[in-house]
């Protein structure tokens, strides 16, 4: 089983976590036309490369961010949501 390192709880089996999907830009609902809004709702990008994802450590209910390579499935780093999200 894969390990995921929680910034608060340390490395844990990934079945202690719940994924909340990639961090996405949220378009201004009042300034977005219906087709773009539908796209935002239903179209997942899923491009090759590195994504920043929300994860929840379920036993402690701690939410944090993880950078993950979608090709190799390598988790590059995990960090608290208060830290800068851009890649170094």
């Amino acid at each position, binding site marked *: 089983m894969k390990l995921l390192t929680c910034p*608060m709880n340390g490395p844990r089996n990934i079945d202690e976590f719940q994924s909340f999907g990639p961090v996405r830009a949220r378009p201004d609902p009042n300034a977005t036309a219906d087709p773009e809004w539908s796209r935002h709702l239903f179209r997942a990008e899923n491009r090759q490369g590195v994504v920043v994802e929300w994860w929840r450590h379920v*036993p*402690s209910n701690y939410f944090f961010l993880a950078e993950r390579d979608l090709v190799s499935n390598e988790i590059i780093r995990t960090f608290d949501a208060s830290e800068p999200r851009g890649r170094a």
Partner: protein
Amino acid sequence: MAAGTATRIYPFMPGGAADGIKLVSGAVVLSDLTASPRFGLKGCGSAAWLAAQGIPLPAVNRIGKHHGMQVLRLGNEDILLLAEGVGETLAEVKTAWHAATAPKGYSSWREEGWAWLRLSGPRLAEAMNGLCALDLRPEKFGPDDIAQTRVGHIEAVTFRSPAGFDILFDITASAYFARSVAAVATHIDQHNA
């Protein structure tokens, strides 16, 4: 809300939700501390208020001591005081908290929401290995460490006590948890038979 005068009933007491479910004893021993005093604060202001009372706060997922109480830091603003045998000390803290003005955090109601069981016995390590996926070898998990993890397939907080491991978990799952520990104890007996 002032403290009530009615009788409190916890799961393993007569009339409690897990009444009739036996706590295993033998090579693995499970004992119930749910009725023991504890008090938790959570939310903005909790840490500052407790610190202002002179209660030293450990780092997150570590345990501190204060006047015989254990101070469990479950999050930046999520602190639980366990007062096994020192209920009066805790009562003073609670009285002060109720009388204080905000910001002082909010009650986390852990004394109502979490059962508090203690696992011990000669086959303790084997039992914990059956219940929990974490590496709890003494050199990896010390007496002041807290693990927020799964024990017996449910979310739980666990840490070492002199006798073994203390486990805090959803009080409504008390009967299930006691059965799970009993099953693990049975398997240990069979495996070593």
